C-alpha cells in the first residue's frame, strides 16, 4: 500500500487543520525537490506561493473545514529551489484513528496551465472586443442619427410650408449638408467592411502626390478658414510619382488633413510637407492641436478607437478614419505612423509611399489632377447638362427614388416615363419607345437583372437595343461587373449624383445617335 501511494503518478499530501504536514508521497517530493524528513512536520505555508497562501487561508481551508471536500482548485507550489509549480488539487478532510487529516492529491499542470493562460487571455480579449463593438454600435447609431435629426426636422418644416425663401434655402442646404455627412459615414462603414473582408480593390496608376495633397487642401481649407487655422505647405514638386489608386490616396490625405483640422483649436496651425526620402515619398502632416497621450498613441490606428470614451467624446466620428487610412496606406505598400510629445502638444502623422520607378519620360496621365472626392464636390454643381428631346424610362420600385429621378431628368429637359417594376417597365416598352432605360437593381419580386435579360430578348429591335444604366446601392466592383455582363451599358451607385447621371445619359444617347 505504501508503495502504491509513493509511486502513484500524482502528488499526495496530508496535513492537519494547523497546517502541519503529516505525510507526503515520493512523487510530490520529486516534484518539489525535497527529502522526506525536510517536509514532514513542516508548515504547509512554506510550500505555497504567497498568493496561494492567501487563497488557501481565505478559500480552501474554510471550504474544507465546512464541507469536508474541495475539487479542482488551482494552486501554485514553491519547490525547494524556488521554482513555481502549478498544480490542481482535490482534497478531502477525514478522520483517521482519531486524528483529523486533510488529504490532497496534486496533479502537475504545467502544460495545462499554459493552455489555461492562453484561454484566459483569449477570454479577456473577447470581452474587450465585445465591449469595443458595443461602444462602436452606440457611436454609429448616434452618429447616424445626428444628421437625420436635422434632415427630418427641416423636411417637416418644409412640409408645413410656411418658410420664407431665405429659410427654405437654409432648410435645403441643411438637408443636403447632413445627407452628405451621413453618406460619408456610410461610406466609411462600407470601406471598413470591405477592408476587413479583404474585398477592397485598387485602380492603380501613376499618381503625383503633390496634386493629391493640393486637392485635399482645397477640400479642407473652408473648415480650416472657419476655425482660423493656418494651412501651410512645403511640397517638393520633384518628389516623383508613386504607384497607387488616386481616389484612395485622396481619401488618405483627406482623412489626415481633416483630422488635423478637427483636432486643432481655433487659431492653430496645420503643416503639410512632402519630400523625397530615399526611395519613398514622405508626407508629414503636423498640427498644433490636442496631441495624443503616450497611452493612446499605440491605438491611434485601431478601429473603433477614439481617445475619448463614447460618453465624453468631444469629437464626432466613428473612429474608423484612421484604421481605414492605415489599411489603405499598407495596401499601397506604404507605412504610416503617429507621433506626439503628449496631450496638448500637437501631433504628427508621417506617411511614406514607395516611389514609382519610371523609365519612360512620357508621363502617365496625371490621374489625380481632377480629384474625385466622394460626397464633397457638388455644392456648385446644380448646372445640369441638357437632355432636351431625350425620352428616358425610369424603373424603381420605391416611389421616392422614382420621383427624385423623374425630377432630376425632367429638370434637364428629358421626357420621362416611370415604371414601378419589371412587369410595369415591359408593359411601358410596348407602348412607348424611350431612348434610354435607367433601372434600379434591388427591387421587390423581380430585380433589375431580370428586367435587362427580358429587355434584351424583346422582339422589337429598338426596344431590344435600348442603352441602359443600372443603379445600385452597392458600389462593389462585383456588382458593376454583373450589371455590365447582364446587359447594362453602365453602372452607377447610389446615392445618385444628379450631374453625373445627366452627363451619363447625355453621353450614352449621343453615342447611340452618332
Amino acid at each position: 500500500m505504501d508503495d502504491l501511494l509513493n509511486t502513484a503518478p500524482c502528488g499526495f499530501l496530508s496535513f492537519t487543520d494547523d497546517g502541519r504536514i503529516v505525510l507526503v508521497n515520493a512523487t510530490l517530493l520529486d516534484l518539489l525537490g525535497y527529502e522526506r524528513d525536510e517536509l514532514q512536520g513542516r508548515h504547509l505555508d512554506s510550500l505555497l506561493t504567497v498568493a496561494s497562501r492567501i487563497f488557501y487561508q481565505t478559500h480552501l481551508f474554510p471550504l474544507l473545514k465546512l464541507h469536508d471536500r474541495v475539487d479542482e482548485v488551482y494552486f501554485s507550489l514553491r519547490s525547494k529551489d524556488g521554482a513555481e509549480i502549478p498544480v490542481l488539487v482535490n482534497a478531502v478532510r477525514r478522520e483517521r484513528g482519531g486524528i483529523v487529516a486533510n488529504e490532497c492529491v496534486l496533479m502537475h499542470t504545467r502544460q495545462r496551465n499554459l493552455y489555461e493562460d492562453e484561454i484566459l487571455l483569449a477570454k479577456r480579449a473577447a470581452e474587450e472586443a465585445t465591449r469595443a463593438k458595443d461602444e462602436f454600435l452606440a457611436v454609429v447609431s448616434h452618429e447616424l442619427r445626428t444628421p437625420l435629426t436635422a434632415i427630418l426636422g427641416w423636411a417637416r418644416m418644409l412640409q408645413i410650408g410656411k418658410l420664407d425663401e431665405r429659410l427654405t434655402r437654409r432648410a435645403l442646404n441643411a438637408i443636403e449638408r447632413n445627407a452628405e455627412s451621413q453618406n460619408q459615414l456610410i461610406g466609411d462603414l462600407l470601406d471598413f467592411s470591405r477592408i476587413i473582408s479583404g474585398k477592397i480593390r485598387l485602380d492603380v496608376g501613376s499618381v503625383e502626390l503633390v496634386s493629391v495633397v493640393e486637392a485635399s487642401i482645397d477640400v479642407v481649407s473652408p473648415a480650416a478658414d472657419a476655425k482660423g487655422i493656418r494651412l501651410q505647405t512645403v511640397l517638393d514638386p520633384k518628389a516623383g510619382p508613386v504607384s497607387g489608386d488616386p481616389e484612395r490616396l485622396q481619401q488618405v490625405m483627406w482623412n489626415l488633413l481633416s483630422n488635423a483640422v478637427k483636432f486643432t483649436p481655433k487659431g492653430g496651425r496645420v503643416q503639410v510637407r512632402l519630400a523625397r526620402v530615399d526611395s519613398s515619398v514622405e508626407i508629414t502632416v503636423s498640427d498644433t492641436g490636442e496631441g495624443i497621450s503616450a497611452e493612446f498613441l499605440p491605438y491611434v490606428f485601431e478601429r473603433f478607437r477614439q481617445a475619448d470614451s463614447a460618453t465624453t467624446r468631444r469629437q464626432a466620428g466613428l473612429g474608423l478614419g484612421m484604421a481605414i487610412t492605415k489599411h489603405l496606406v499598407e495596401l499601397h505598400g506604404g507605412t504610416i505612423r503617429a507621433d506626439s510629445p503628449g496631450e496638448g502638444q500637437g501631433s504628427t502623422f508621417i506617411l511614406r509611399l514607395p516611389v514609382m520607378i519610371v523609365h519612360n519620360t512620357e508621363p502617365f496621365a496625371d490621374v489625380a489632377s481632377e480629384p474625385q472626392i466622394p460626397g464633397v464636390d457638388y455644392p456648385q454643381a446644380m448646372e445640369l447638362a441638357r437632355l432636351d428631346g431625350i425620352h428616358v424610362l425610369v424603373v424603381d420600385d420605391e416611389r421616392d427614388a422614382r420621383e427624385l429621378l423623374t425630377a432630376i431628368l425632367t429638370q434637364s429637359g428629358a421626357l420621362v416615363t416611370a415604371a414601378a417594376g419589371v412587369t410595369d417597365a415591359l408593359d411601358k416598352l410596348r407602348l412607348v419607345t424611350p431612348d434610354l432605360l435607367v433601372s434600379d437593381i434591388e427591387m421587390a419580386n423581380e430585380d433589375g437583372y431580370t428586367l435587362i435579360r427580358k429587355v434584351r430578348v424583346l422582339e422589337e429591335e429598338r426596344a431590344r437595343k435600348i442603352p441602359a444604366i443600372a443603379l445600385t446601392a452597392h458600389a462593389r466592383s462585383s456588382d458593376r461587373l454583373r450589371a455590365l455582363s447582364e446587359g447594362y451599358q453602365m453602372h452607377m451607385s447610389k446615392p445618385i449624383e444628379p450631374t453625373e447621371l445627366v452627363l451619363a445619359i447625355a453621353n450614352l444617347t449621343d453615342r447611340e445617335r452618332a
Partner: protein
Amino acid sequence: MTRNILARNNVKVGGNGTQPMLFAHGFGCDQNMWRFVTPAFADDYRIVLFDYVGSGKSDLQAYSAERYGNLDGYAQDVLDVCAELDLKDVIFVGHSVSSVVGMLAAIREPERFDRLILVGPSPRYINDPPAYVGGFDRSDIVELLEVMEKNYIGWANFLAPVVMKNPERPELTRELEESFCSTDPKIARRFAEATFFSDNRDDLSKVPVPSLIMQCSEDALAPLEVGEYLYRHLPQSTLRVMRATGHCPQMSHPEETIRVIKEYLAAERFA
C-alpha cells in the same frame, strides 16, 4: 425596508441573552465560518449573524460595484443591520478584513458599540517600507487576483462539493450549493481589491471603543508585526497572541478562540 435589509444581508438572529454579539465574516467566506464558536455564546448573548452583500446568501441584486469598491460600503452594511435590529451596546466580532470594517462602523456610530473583537486583523496588507510591515507586496496581491480568476472559472466545483455520502439526497447538495461563500467572480475580485489594497492605519486612533486584538502565531495574512502595530496605535486595545496558527482560528481552533473571547469579556466586565 425592514424586510429588505434582513433579507438583503441574510441576517440570522439567535441566542438567549440580551447584549448583542454581531459576528462579521471575512473575505472569501460567509457567516458559516462562525458556526463552531457561536453556540458557546448563545446562552448569554443575542447572536446576530449576517452576510455582506455579494457574499453567501445575500441578495446579489443589491450589489453595487461603486458602494462595495471600498470598505466603507461594507461598514455601511454593518450599520444598516444594526439600525434595522436597533442594536445597541454591540460586541462586534470581526474576522480578518471585517476587523477594519468594524472599526469604521464604530467610528461612524460609536453609540452603537460596546467593544470590538478583532480576529486576525490588519490595517494594511501591503508593506510600506521602511516603517511598516504588512506582509505583502503589491505584486503578491496581483498574483492572488490571478489565482482567484483561474479558480473562479471552475467555481462551480467549489460551490457544489459532491456529497458522496448522500447520493440519494440531492437536496443536500442543493443546500450546499446555495450556502457557499463568494459566488460571483467579479464581486469576489472587487472584495479582494477593497480588502488587500486598503490602508486604514490613519483610522486606528479614531476608534472610540475598547478592542481585543486576536493575533494568531504564524498567520499567513497578518504577521506578528501587524498585531503589534495595531496594539500600539489602537487606543484601549488588548493584544492576545494565540497558540492557534493560520488565519481562521474560529475554524481551526474554536476552543481557544472561545476561551480567549470569554476571558476578555469577563475581564472587561470586572475591570
